[in-house]
């Protein structure tokens, strides 16, 4: 299949031949090519040209408005010397690991629980998944209220009689990032559960039947047969969640606004505030390019793999 050509090691040799064949076809039968052309041009401009544009800006001294003077790697050196950027990066590390870890852990557990011939499955599944249809702004607004120490969950538990209960993560600079993680996990777990449930349902039941006949215990079957087969589902889930974590902007803005102080600063909020509120467009661009490279590093191998497995 031609799919392999897209990502094989010598695409450029073949590119020339493709272009020739393409031009010939374009002359003979232009309609299909003309139909796809608008979308293609739109993507070329809005994705590829714009990324190059951002890259260019990151090598300039642009502040409030773009300037096109060459400044070399200066902005990247500045970026990596900013404590705020370190805070954003380390928060992304904490957020990424715990958000992905908890979403996958709880999602897998719920999927296994739901796969036990549960009577009300059709009723439970939508309940677990509905947060995924909400905007992060809605979720953030709601949870900001739930996590409000004076009025929210803290007060409810104190009213129940546990007077010393404190749950003030959202205003505690050391804990605020965990509040963001909590809400992110709440929003994404149902989705991960759905992925895992589809994975569980896709496993060949003959193998399991055979193992049961052999007298293997249910726990052993889960550990030895089922969980190993879910590793590709897990990989998909981790990549999608990592992608969401790197991009996540709305949730932090709605929940904490990046605060208290810069306690919940993430690269996405950093990029926005440096570009649009602090008028340091070149530094903002440099941070955007760092984010882009990170996403490429996460998604690239995955896409490559997807194309390769399709070929087989």
């Amino acid at each position, binding site marked *: 299949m031609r799919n392999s050509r897209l990502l094989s090691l010598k695409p450029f040799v073949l590119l020339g031949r493709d272009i020739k064949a393409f031009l010939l076809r374009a002359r003979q039968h232009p309609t299909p090519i003309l*139909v796809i052309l608008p979308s293609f041009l739109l993507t070329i401009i809005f*994705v590829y040209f714009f990324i190059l544009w951002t890259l260019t800006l990151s090598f300039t001294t642009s502040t409030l408005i773009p300037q096109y003077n060459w400044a070399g790697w200066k902005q990247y050196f500045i970026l990596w010397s900013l404590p705020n950027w370190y805070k954003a990066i380390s928060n992304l590390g904490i957020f990424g690991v715990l958000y992905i870890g908890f979403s996958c852990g709880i999602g897998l557990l719920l999927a296994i629980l739901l796969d036990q011939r549960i009577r009300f499955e059709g009723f439970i599944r939508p309940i677990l*998944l509905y947060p995924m249809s909400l905007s992060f702004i809605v979720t953030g607004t709601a949870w900001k209220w739930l996590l409000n120490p004076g009025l929210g969950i803290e007060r409810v538990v104190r009213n129940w009689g546990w007077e010393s209960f404190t749950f003030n993560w959202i205003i505690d600079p050391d804990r605020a990032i965990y509040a963001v993680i909590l809400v992110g996990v*709440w929003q994404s777990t149902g989705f991960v559960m759905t992925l895992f449930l589809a994975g569980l349902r896709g496993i060949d039941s003959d193998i399991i039947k055979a193992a049961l006949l052999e007298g293997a215990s249910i726990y052993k079957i889960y550990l030895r047969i089922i969980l190993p087969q879910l590793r590709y589902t897990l990989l998909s889930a981790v990549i999608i969640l990592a992608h969401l974590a790197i*991009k996540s902007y709305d949730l932090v803005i709605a929940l904490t606004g990046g605060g208290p102080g810069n306690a919940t600063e993430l690269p996405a909020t950093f990029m926005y505030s440096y570009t649009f509120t602090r008028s340091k467009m070149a530094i903002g661009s440099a941070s955007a390019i760092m984010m882009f490279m990170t996403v490429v590093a996460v998604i690239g191998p995955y896409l490559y793999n997807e194309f390769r497995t399709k070929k087989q």
Partner: protein
Amino acid sequence: MKKDNDSVLYMHSPIIRIIIYGLLLLACLSFLFPLYVMIVTSFKTLEEIRKANMLALPENFTLMPWISAWQESCVGLRCKGLKDYFYNSIEIVVPGVVISTFLGACNGYVLTKWRFPGHNWVFGLLLFGCFIPFQAILIPAARTLGILAISNNPIGLILVHIAYGVGFTTLFFRNYYEVFPTELVQAATIEGAGFFQIFFKIMLPSSVPIIVVCFIWQFTNIWNDFIFGVSFTSGEGIPMTVALNNLANSSTGVKEYNVHMAAAIIAALPTLLLYILSGRYFVRGLMAGAVKG
């Protein structure tokens, strides 16, 4: 995929089954509890919110927070409620969804039934666009919309949503048409049907499920968008999510939590209703968007 609910392997022991049902109940409660609190809070007076337990049902049931959120609450300095921003979002979502779905259908059709040399390059380039973090294109997009004089204008946001949605919609339709029998298309060609005739008479009528999936996916994404809205619009042109955020995060005045909750529910309602009415398709879209191919 097996049919739902017939797994070969499951735990029989009654005690374990009680624990399983207990855990699932707990999960359902913790997923529903924020929604419950939002709803009850939106019907309470501010006084009651300060006084009583968050979980309690409203004592003096009031619709005022809803009325206030819809037509009186202040977003910035403008105190005319959220209704105009709600309409803004609709104005953006409807054309955005329709056009990007239509383009996706055309592209999927070309990429499966009218392949040309290099079609995989085109698809690969379109697909990669789905994954970029929007921060990497935010500044150029803002400049371009400014130059074209369509920033702070629904047309600008529609254009942006089409540009970054078309990769996904193409993916949906490509995967759907890939398994559509090519023989049918060939037979129609022999009968003398042209490119567009086949598309409108054969492909589109048999694409209802994927059109629904694509529609829901795009509707949810565009309605819930925040970063484009906040970057490219301001004042009266902002979409619903941005208005909600400005309302809930305004630093002036008393925090009217009941109004905030009513506003959040209003902002959530379109996508939530869509999800409740067509959950199956929503899940399909998520899965297709998640597991490529």
